């Protein structure tokens, strides 16, 4: 029974090779809103399953970091933004196993998960926006968004920064928390998480380079003002949440 729930948990808090299921599903779903819902709900299901565990095996956090590193590395070579989001989600959620091991409360863990998933969900919606405008969200094909659709580009940059755990977004504090908690007990694990973080930054920079910079392209419709402010509001809420998180941590 334990092994079955463990497998179930490994699917929803993705661990390789069970992580492939999520990515397969995510690639098949094309609707951006549905993708967003999946991104928000998926790790919460995983956390619900893990609540049944009294403890988790010692090797699991290590396996989780390795899974996270694998997907972060794969995200580096991806050009399809939808898949990139899926891989980044896998890489991020896998690290929840490390927090799980730190004895945090269920609510705290769920807040961590939501903090990680909201930027990913925004990313999924923006991916849909790119597909609608250009036929695909794909790096290196058009670029120059900063000049062509500056509002969209601005929001995209902020969301990507949130995904790759830049201060003061919740993801940043989640990563900080993992590393701080891991250093005394499993320093090698902390190093692994640091490496994953670096890979995220690299992947994010590549994504922005492939979309944002470059000469102006043929005109397409930019993000509406109302939509832009909606994104800004969510991002500000995330930052506020992140700052509050800092209080919790301290």
């Amino acid at each position: 029974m334990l092994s079955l729930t463990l497998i179930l948990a490994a699917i929803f808090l993705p661990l390789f090779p069970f992580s492939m299921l999520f990515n397969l599903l995510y690639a098949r779903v094309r609707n951006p809103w549905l993708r967003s819902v999946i991104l928000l709900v998926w790790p919460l299901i995983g956390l619900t399953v893990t609540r049944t565990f009294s403890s988790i095996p010692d090797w699991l956090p290590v396996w989780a970091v390795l899974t996270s590193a694998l997907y972060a590395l794969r995200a580096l070579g991806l050009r399809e933004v939808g898949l990139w989001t899926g891989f980044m989600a896998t890489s991020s959620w896998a690290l929840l196993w490390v927090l799980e091991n730190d004895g945090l409360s269920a609510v705290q863990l769920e807040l961590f998960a939501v903090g990680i998933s909201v930027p990913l969900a925004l990313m999924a919606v923006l991916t849909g926006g790119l597909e609608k405008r250009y036929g695909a969200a794909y790096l290196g094909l058009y670029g120059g968004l900063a000049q062509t659709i500056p509002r969209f580009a601005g929001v995209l940059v902020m969301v990507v920064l949130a995904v790759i755990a830049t201060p003061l977004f919740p993801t940043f504090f989640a990563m900080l928390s993992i590393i701080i908690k891991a250093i005394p007990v499993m320093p090698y694990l902390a190093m692994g998480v640091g490496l994953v973080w670096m890979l995220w930054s690299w992947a994010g920079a590549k994504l922005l380079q492939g979309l944002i910079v470059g000469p102006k392209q043929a005109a397409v419709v930019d993000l509406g003002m109302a939509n832009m402010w909606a994104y800004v509001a969510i991002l500000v809420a995330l930052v506020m949440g992140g700052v509050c998180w800092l209080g919790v941590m301290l």
Partner: protein
Amino acid sequence: MSVTLGQRLKIRSMIYVAAEPVPYFWPMRSFIHHNPLHGLEKMPFDAAVKKGASLFHGKVFLPRSEYQDYLREGQVDVSRLEYEIGRFLADRSAVADLDMRQLLMTLLTKTESPVMLPTLLATAADVQASLQGKTVHDESDRSKEIITARLRQSLLQQRTVYESVDVLYGTDIGTSLDELVIKSCLDFFDEGQSVWRMPNREQGFFRAWREVAKRNIRFSLRGLHIQKILADHETPEDVIHHVMTTLQVPEEQWIGFFTREIARLHGWAGFIRWRANAKHYYWTQRFPADLVDYMAVRLTLALALLGKHEHRSMANTAESIRELIETRPHEAYLRHQLYGGTVMPAMAHRIETALQRNHDGNLDRVFQSYVKQKRADEARRQGDALQDMLAQASMADRLAGLPAAEFERLLDTLRAFEQQEGMCWLRAMESHATNHLLQGVNVVPPGLRDKRPFAQALFCIDTRSERIRRQLESIGDYQTFGTAGFFGVPVSFMELGKGSETHLCPVLLTPKNVVLETSVNGEGAHALGALEKGLHALKDSVLTPFVTVEAIGLLFGFDMVGKTVVPRRYHQWRKYLDKKKPATRLLLDKLTREQADSIVRAVQRAMIVKAMELELGQETETLTDELIRDLRESALGHDESYRRHAGSLGISETDLEQFIERLRKDYRINLAFAQMQLERLGRIGFTLDEQVHFVSTALKSIGLTKDYSRFILLVGHGSQSDNNPYESALDCGACGGNHGLSSARVLAQMANKPEVRKRLHELGFNIPDDSWFVPALHNTTTDEIAISDVDLLPPTHLVYLDRLKKGLTAAARLCSQERLPTLYPAQEQQEPAVAERMMQRNAVDWSQVRPEWGLSGNAYFIIGNRELTKQMPLYGRAFLHSYDYHLDKKHRLLENILTGPLVVGQWINMEHYFSTVDNERFGSGSKVYHNVAGRFGVMTGNISDLRTGLPAQTVLGNGKPYHQPLRLITVIEAPFEHAVQAIDAVVSVKTLVRNGWIRMLIIDPETRTVYTYEDGDWHKQPCAFESASGYSKESYAS
């Protein structure tokens, strides 16, 4: 393995030919304006720009929207535009009953973007089907044939092997290669910027690089096996042969391959090409390099980078790429689409996945599906664009009903027209500029003067002189002339305190005579200057910067604050601290044999005295004249009398013998070196005949042969700016990118000499004794004109000096007032004194990226009497060369003007043209990102091609062209036959005119007729300057 001598020579010749389209690039400190397409000037302009666009991947005309802006501003001759459309349609069949004139005019004036899109697969029938809402036919076989042909062209003819690999596999070898080559070039060509320098540079570029590359661990870490390639190949030709045969490039394609390689970094290639030919250049003499070396380095690295990807089993030779195209065209096409960036985004991921899986059946399915969609997409987009354009012309309803053949003809016509549309706009803008000029010119000859002018001033032909000349003429009795800024005297100038010669003449000439600047009072270096040098030395060292920053960083902080917050006042304060240059004279008379001998002897004596102090520790009082003479004679091998001094010096004969040997070798006191010194001294100065010739020619060529005034100002020009690598681009082009004051001083000193005056008098130049040639410098940033050598003025002139200075100041202020709105459009009209202060600030403000507009806006080159345009403000758009054809019966003077100044003017004009139409490719982009490279060029960021053209801040304002890109409209005021004979006599100019690089007009003042050269013939424009509106012309049998 080494290749035969014949093969080596063949490779060298191939590279020589391949590099011809790439223009020279001179070092930045003497920036030379050049035509980026100089190598293509043998072709007609329209064909050359087409080839240049493909070779350098640049744009050669402005976008249509920019021309439409000019049209709205009234800068385009609409009648000429209509004429161009009519001419285009003249030899084309009609398209049904469509009004093609109206359609094309709509296309030009109302449609912002090109209508004809690049299509490969969609046919006219597909486009028409798409417009009619029908399905596009599937013709897979036909598509495959087209695709294969296009792949052959794109991958085997238009690209080098690694470029093809990049576009097939997304490897980005080209970028890596450029970076590595640039780093290698920076190492080798450094002129003192680096602290640690590349070893063995005296062996040449390739050999020095080879030695370093073989031991370069960074190459090994990157997986580049350079050693393997270099092991068996010592000479650059060997390596080139090896790489080209390894890459299996057929030998008949080598020249094209080399050209593409060279054009990739055309800035570096142009610099190396210039440097290899500049035999007098100090760094060439020390560290030789040429394009064969460059090609060998480049190809070695390219092969190594290709080798790095060998494990991916990809096509990485010309032959294997050909095989891929022939046997697996579907794979090659999908790869080309995906990695070449032309894929339809919606299918990009599917194609990428199919290519990764590499399953034949799947690839073929994806290919079929992609081609079908691509074709439909091309047809749809083309149809939409066409529909929009026809709607603007109110003809949209006509489109669907056109028969297929007519529809196809319509597309062909539109495509052909858009391909040559740039020339239509260009001609129409030039026509407007020409008409504007002709409406303002005055062909009435000047009347006789009742008295001589207060002062005459000879300015450079530079466009910036036009404004100051006009202002000067407006405030008093000043007569001005235009001449090339080196005043016709090619000089190799050795400035006081500098150890090298500077050529003060257009780069087309090589000066034979050297002029030395010598100090009047022989003062040494100033203490503050020495301190400054010391600080810079500390800054440039490897370790000292750490200590320096701690110790004296604050001093630099004060400097920074001063320069930033109050630049003008700070500069004035610094001027008190900085010592002024001492009074100097020019050594410009030829030395006699005796004088030269005496100088050599004096130098040798001084060297011996120094050597004795340093080597033997002798005090000055022990060094008698006799001793020095004997040592000198002995060192020169004339006698052995030195031995008798051994005792008095307190050293053995052997030691003294060794000392003599050191004098010969280390101190170069020997016969061979003395002979070389004598030869060099022989270059100093001009003979009296030469001086008379230069002065008389200078005066005659501008028509100044009578009515000489008391002051004859020779005004050179130069710019002043801080923190500006492009400063010399704003200096005098006729002086080789240097300030023009020295040239002015040379001619003034010659012309004021009594012996010269006497000989001039004999030649008919009746220059009064009270006429004095006064050199001056026009600071083009501040408009200030500073008189030089005032201490040489005769006392009789001093009473008039104040009036002269006040006149020059007034003209300068008015000129600043006129220029101010061009630099600060938001500024309202300011008082002249305020404008002057703002211009002065520009000159010393180190954050100012645009201290002045320089030659931007140049459009005309006018050769004729000043009266021709005196009454017409040209706002700094014209080069003005004074010329009086009455004094030039054999048109030799006109030929000289055409040979030098006009050609330089055309280079300047073309540099501005191409820097404006494509600032990123032919210009140098924004100055903000520039970094000085090796002290001879600038790069964008830390690694880039050498930026060869003009920066964006020089030709663009707010992202829009400030400079109007036109070909140089040249006007010669002279009888038609006279001018044509002169043009035909100068082959280079004749070629430029016939190929349309220069728009040539002749204004015949005797018949009051204008002749224009166009379409291979001269055309007469009757009474053009009286009714120059509208375009009409009749052929004139020349």
